[in-house]
């Protein structure tokens, strides 16, 4: 069954797969995780602020994003971002946004909903006495968050945040629907060009599997270490 497979096609495509495809995937994952974390933390703070309207807005946003399939959100932003750009810059026509910028905005907006729930749980896990003590010391709300609450929340939630980033890494493969050359997109382009679907898709599966496995193994070790310290 493996007799007429040509695994040399993979070796020939390696530079393209990794320098074009994997670079796109990893850059997108890293920037989207960072942006999603910042925006998600802001959403979590809005929800926990006790302010009725702010909390409501953040809640609706999170619930809304989490009830939609990522593929649909990718399509939405792909068509919507040029119009938003036009509106923001006051241009007369919808501006053209590159594939990378469009998918980065999509993933930041989408992942923020998931990161915000993680950060919310993290912030709520801090005992009430700590912000109380901080304000007794005369720290403002911003200082309390910056120096007392958020560092601990972030640290406690680090394993979950990384796990979510692994999910994000796998989800970036969905930019395939926009024919973008991420790792899977690159593999698929070579597969179609050379008529070698089996070899290329198997190879892509092995690469995704290896990276995710190593990363989740790292998370388990991290979790054990954090558990000992606490």
């Amino acid at each position, binding site marked *: 069954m493996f007799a007429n497979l040509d695994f040399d096609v993979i070796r020939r495509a390696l530079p393209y797969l990794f320098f074009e495809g994997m670079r796109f995937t990893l850059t997108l994952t890293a920037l989207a995780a960072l942006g999603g974390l910042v925006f998600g933390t802001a959403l979590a703070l809005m929800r926990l602020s006790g302010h009725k309207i702010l909390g409501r807005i953040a809640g609706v946003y999170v619930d809304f994003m989490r009830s*939609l399939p990522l593929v649909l959100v990718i399509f939405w932003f792909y068509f919507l971002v040029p119009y938003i750009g036009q509106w923001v810059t006051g241009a007369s026509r919808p501006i053209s946004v590159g594939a990378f910028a469009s998918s980065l905005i999509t993933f930041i907006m989408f992942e923020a909903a998931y990161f915000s729930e993680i950060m919310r749980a993290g912030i709520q896990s801090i005992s009430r006495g700590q912000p109380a003590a901080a304000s007794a010391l005369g720290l403002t709300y911003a200082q309390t968050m910056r120096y007392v609450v958020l560092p601990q929340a972030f640290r406690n939630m680090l394993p979950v945040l990384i796990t979510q980033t692994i999910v994000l890494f796998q989800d970036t493969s969905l930019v395939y629907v926009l024919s973008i050359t991420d790792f899977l997109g690159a593999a698929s382009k070579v597969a179609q060009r050379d008529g070698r679907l089996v070899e290329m898709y198997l190879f892509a599966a092995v690469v995704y599997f290896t990276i995710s496995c190593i990363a989740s193994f790292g998370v388990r070790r991290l979790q054990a270490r954090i558990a000992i310290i606490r």
Partner: protein
Amino acid sequence: MNYHWNWGIFFEPNPMGTGTYLDMLLSGLVLTLKTAALAWIIALIFGSLVGVMRTLPSRGADWFGFCWVEFFRNMPLLVQLFLWFFVLPELLPKAAGTWLKQLPNAPFWTAAIGIGFFMSARVAVQLQAGIGSLPRGQKMAATALGLTTLQAYRYVLLPMAFRIILPPLTSEFLNTIKNTAVAITIGLLELTGQARSMQEFSFQVFEAFTAATLLYLLVNAVVVTAMRFLERWVAIPGYITGK
């Protein structure tokens, strides 16, 4: 904005000759629900088996469950669908592969099986956690009463564990519905796929996606409400969620 809005588009006939554009979207919704239902049944069956295996005293069973979960969790769903759809028929003996490729509705069966196995890993993890959260005394008491391992799981452990993990199972079911949208890549015309083809035929991008969005929100609301009722119905007196 120079986008030309036309909300009446839903009642105009679609170019496929299958009624209006609205009919097109609704047929997509039906396919989404059918795929999700079949995938969920597969996920529940295999997820339960694997989840139980991970809690058995047998090391072999535990190891098998561990491999199953890691295998299906560490690959993107899209890649798994490609493996089922493009790779599997080529690796099978020639006759079987040809038979598989000529199946009618191949995208539907591939999507349901692929998403089902993908979700089964998540169900297994939840169930393992659910069984693990039960007090050790329950298993011991069951054994002391003379129940076999099978009976202990069937009458004592699983009924409790499934009730405990009902809320996370609800979100996994919602994930299953959302994940059917990935099957657009193997040509399944589910809700997102139909919205996409409506956009291609009519150029009314935002109307098509708005309608799909509303339908997804509706399905979500229905499932969440139904599961709340189910949770209350099966709740055990004495537990926090019980009567």
